[in-house]
């Protein structure tokens, strides 16, 4: 019974990890005004598996939240930034918020 209980606990933890969503931040250079970065946000949201995308002109970054269980394609994300007319730099994976 005790073993079964521990198995259930471990199984639920594994399940939680498997369905957790990933969040990434991409550093982007070349962004200017609000109107100019609208296209960037549209491009990012259209990517498969992307649940939400936010842009920060202050921090020169875009924050991308993936749908649960979907792994990000870094190359696709960088290409979306290039297709919007800007320059992507580093990509940082943010641990899923508790």
């Amino acid at each position, binding site marked *: 019974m005790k073993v079964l209980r521990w198995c259930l606990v471990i199984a639920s933890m594994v399940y939680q990890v498997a369905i957790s969503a990933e969040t990434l931040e991409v550093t982007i*250079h*070349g*962004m*200017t*005004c*609000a*109107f*100019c*970065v*609208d*296209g*960037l*946000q*549209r*491009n990012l949201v259209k990517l498969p598996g992307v649940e939400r995308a*936010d*842009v*920060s*002109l*202050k*921090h*020169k970054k875009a*924050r991308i939240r993936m749908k649960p269980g979907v792994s990000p394609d870094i190359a696709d994300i960088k290409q979306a930034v*290039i*297709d*919007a*007319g*800007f*320059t992507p730099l580093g990509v940082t994976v943010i641990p899923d918020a508790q």
Partner: protein
Amino acid sequence: MRSSQTTVFLLSILMMSIAHAMGLRSFVALPVEKGGAVGRMQLERNTDQDIERSTVNLAYGMRARHTLLFGLPYRLSPSGPDRLGDLSALYRYIAWQVDGPARTHRLGLLGGGIMPTENSRDGAIQGGAVATFYRQRYEWDLDLLYAAGLSDRPDAARYDVSWQYRLTPAEYPDWGIGAEWDLVAELGGRWRENQSTVHQITFGVQWISQRWVLEGGVIWDLNDPHHTSLLLSTRLHL
């Protein structure tokens, strides 16, 4: 005679398509995303000559550095023939681009043509360049465009130097795209074969949000300060 010649020249200036610009009247080398489009509707009224025209512009992003620019003017007043202007089509290629954390420097090449909408008019081939320098809250746009007229169409040319300054906000929010107010000052020149060059100075403001731009300004003719025009425009990210 001088007054009628001035009117004709002003009409010809007003019917020159402006195409996509982030300055009030100048071109810019800023991007339109791949597959994206920006539409613009502009109204301009020359208060002295009682000339009004509207211009519809469209910018389409083919790829990251490749943009198509279209412009079509229409004379609202005075009435009479030839109210629909000629269609301007330009291909803009960003040949040089250096991006930094809060800046971008870009140089674009322009090439295309002017297609007449009336059989009585001839077209033109046009080419030029545009540069944008943006840093922190300031932006400079410079453009130069020459249109070589075909058959009987006279040659024409233009230059613009545009300066924009973000009035507010002083600092962007941490996340999200909010609206901003920009101040604009521009110097521009318009030349047409067998006519003198008209130099104009423009002052205006822009309200810029994520999808909309609303803007307005006043244009003074430096050759004759009594000649002024009012400009009102809106842009939409389609």
